[in-house]
């Protein structure tokens, strides 16, 4: 029951979907779609697990007055405020997506600036990392450096002002050597994904059961 049933479920689901792809007629035809809708519903429940773990973790931190427990208080306040405003907007404005709803205000004033700035920080870090780590140590590293330099300059207007050939070379790099390398890498990646899918369906890959 603990191992065999899940393995059988994986096998049947996987095989049915492969067969449905080649036989797109009822009753198999809409199986992909039906399974996907089931998946979405299951995912809705899974969310509750994640939230429970998040809330419990921070409640424990507050309870035991562990270092940084004040931040956990802030986290829980922001969590419940958003939740309340979300359901309030849902019921009062009939949709949390309504632009007049307080939920949207919260999104624009809190979530958006926080998320956007977190990622904007990377601009500083990547500049610092490039200065520290980007060294022409050997041929491979030098090629990487030259290619990055040409693309960085060729893609922006100042590149053309420096030398009109830069954007042309940059386009050539993107469309030929870069594209060829990406195509080869992705080919390997997807062949790997196919092998992994087969292993999962045939029950040879079982790590998801642990």
């Amino acid at each position, binding site marked *: 029951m603990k191992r065999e049933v899940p393995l059988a479920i994986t096998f049947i689901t996987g095989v049915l979907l492969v067969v449905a792809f080649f036989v797109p007629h009822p009753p198999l035809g*809409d199986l*992909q*779609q039906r399974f*996907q*809708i089931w*998946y*979405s519903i299951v*995912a*809705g429940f899974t969310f509750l697990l994640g939230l429970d773990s998040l809330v419990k973790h921070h409640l424990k931190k507050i309870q035991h007055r562990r270092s940084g427990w004040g931040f956990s208080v802030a986290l829980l306040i922001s969590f419940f405020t958003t939740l309340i405003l979300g359901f309030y907007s849902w019921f009062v404005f*009939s*949709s949390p*997506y*309504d*632009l007049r709803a307080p939920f*949207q205000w919260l*999104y*624009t004033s809190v*979530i*958006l*600036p926080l*998320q*956007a700035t*977190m*990622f*904007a920080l990377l*601009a*500083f870090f*990547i*500049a*610092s990392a*490039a*200065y*520290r780590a*980007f*060294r*022409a140590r050997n041929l491979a590293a030098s090629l990487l*450096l030259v290619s990055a*330099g040409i693309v*960085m*300059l060729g*893609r*922006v*207007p*100042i*590149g*053309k*002002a420096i030398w009109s050939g830069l*954007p042309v070379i940059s*386009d050539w790099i*993107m*469309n030929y050597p*870069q*594209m060829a390398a*990406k*195509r080869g890498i*992705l080919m390997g990646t997807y062949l790997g994904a196919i092998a992994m899918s087969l292993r999962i369906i045939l029950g040879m890959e079982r790590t998801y059961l642990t």
Partner: protein
Amino acid sequence: MIELLDKLDRRIIYLVIGIVVAYPLIVHPVMPIRVSEEVKRAYEFVEDSLPSGSVILISIDYDAASEPELTPMFRAVLTHAFRKGHKVIYMGHWALGLPLAQKDLEEIAHRMGKTYGVDYVNLGYRPGFVTVMLAMGRELRDIYSSDYQGIPIDSIPMMANIHNYDQIDLIIGFEAGSTGEFWIQYVGSRFNKRMFFGTTGVVAPDLYPYYASGQILGLIGGLKGAAEYETQIGHPARGVFGMPAQSFAHLAILIFIVIGNIGYILRRRR
């Protein structure tokens, strides 16, 4: 001297980056934008190949983390589509991104005198992108029985004859992750649909093989791509405005890399 070149304090680098980005935004010098072939092809398809009144599906597959790159190109493409009289179905696979671009959708539609339900419709978000992509191949009402505000799809005039991809002429995705590849693999290949993407700079290189194989019609990459599309439609906005800052920041980073390498070479010689 070598020490100085090799071990610049990170805060100096941060400060320089901050200044080279902020200063051009304040003085905003004008820089000519060269339009690449990838963007030109995307533009030309909307401009020349689609007859007025065609149905374009726009998918918002990004969130606030890539808003500065993708919203400008979404605005440019949407403006172009509306200007050509195309009808737009707005949807998306990233829950946190839909409300973001929705403001721009409403603003542009209002400015261009477009009516909700006649010229455009907002289907909203449904989880599980493959679910949504595959379901829309048969009957989009199976997954979108109502729009983003719960209005039944059947009561929206524009959607009366739209049931699946057969009635959609073009798909345009704004991509910050791998959702674009799913669009190609699940929709482009299975339903033989024409599509192009506007993507972040991080995603764009991964999509070049699809562009080269003709699986996508065009590719708008990063803020520069947005600036190119804005230039094509003759409506310079945030993309074009950001290009001087982008240029100077790139130059500054390259100068830092050169300084680092000079320090490295000098240290090795010693």
